[in-house]
């Protein structure tokens, strides 16, 4: 079957992408995560989804590409392609408020604002620990800036004595 892509095709594709969840943080879609940068539909109806990886070595990116292609194929866009871009570099600032609330409900502290002070002088400045996603206490500490996935750090809440993960700002 050859589909003729009309003007609404782009919106239709975006709606399909809303259903593709991140494999490591399954409460967020790939669009909410900010890794879908663009959807291109050319004159001949060719569809290209432009994505950017969260971290250079994120092992989920291949699964994400596969999931995007299979979701689009199921929706009738059989010949879609995925293209990777590195510019501008991914930042957690692209994650909208609604998605941050979902992260918190899932037990992951949402990211703070990414560090825009990129001067090398501040290289060793300590980062403030996030509020606990369970009890909202600010009496927390960062145990390690590296967690179960590249995008998360490991924290500890002194109030409710729970370990929790933080989606770290980058």
């Amino acid at each position, binding site marked *: 079957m050859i589909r003729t892509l009309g003007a609404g095709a782009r919106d239709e594709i975006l709606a399909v992408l809303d259903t593709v969840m991140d494999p490591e943080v399954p409460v967020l879609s790939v669009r909410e995560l900010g890794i879908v940068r663009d959807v291109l539909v050319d004159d001949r109806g060719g569809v290209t989804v432009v994505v950017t990886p969260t971290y*250079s*070595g*994120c092992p989920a990116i291949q699964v994400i590409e596969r999931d995007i292609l299979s979701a689009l194929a199921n929706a009738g866009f059989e010949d879609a392609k995925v293209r990777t871009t*590195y*510019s501008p*570099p991914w930042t957690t600032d692209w994650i909208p408020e609604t998605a941050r609330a979902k992260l918190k409900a899932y037990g992951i502290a949402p990211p703070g604002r990414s560090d825009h002070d990129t001067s*090398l002088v501040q*290289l060793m400045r300590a980062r403030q620990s996030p509020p606990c996603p369970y009890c909202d206490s600010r009496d927390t500490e960062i145990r*390690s800036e590296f967690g179960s996935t590249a995008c998360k750090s490991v924290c500890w809440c002194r109030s409710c004595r729970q370990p929790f993960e933080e989606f770290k700002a980058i």
Partner: protein
Amino acid sequence: MTSPAPSVVPAPPSPPNALFEYLLRLGDDRLILGHRLSEWCGHAPILEEDIALANVALDLLGQATILLRMAGEVEGQGRNEDALAYFREAIEFRNCQLVELPKGDFGFTIARQFLFDVYDVVLLDALTASTNTELAAIAAKSLKEARYHVRHSGEWMLKLGDGTDESHRRVQTALDSLWRFTAELFAADPVDAELAAAGIVPDLASLKPKWASLVREVLDRATLTSPADTPRLAGARGGRTGAHTEHLGHLLAEMQIVARSHPGATW
């Protein structure tokens, strides 16, 4: 005159593609250091650190993948990142010798990582201004990751240096033996000169003062002593032109054996 004329070692011919060479340098530093870090997986002193070192290794391997892929495209001979990682010999690798040294004890691994991480943020920061927009984009992305890396290794330098007598002794010993390998990081050669003239890469010598002051600041706080610079011998070769320590061959044997035993295998 009967005695033969003194032999003259000819200067190595300038490489056909400076950008390809440079991308190998960037990519190989990350590939080899990432492999060294991954040797700690399951062996680090505490669980959090095991996870942290594996995470840093993963970032470096991811950056290596992107850089070696670009190198293959620039070379134009049909080699992809896997061909470059798994099917080159030691003399074809362009990493600095610092990253290929065996992992040593935890103090050695952290001291090496710290010296590299500071170099990496200073270099990547400069590369974000590259006239090659693809390289500039990769540098901007990698820099965000490198800033996490240097905070991690820097905090460990403070803990180990200003920790117990034993931790201080070990990390100081590591610094003393590693220091001479840092000269190579800032030794510019014709590849650097050609690319720097085109604004593609920074002047390496200009990075040294920034690196030295950032390193010294942390070492001072960690109550560690900065070793004295040893002058680099004129004509000295290093990893950037394929002269490696014996350790790289052993590392490659382990890293490459599966790909070479089963070429093209998928699962």
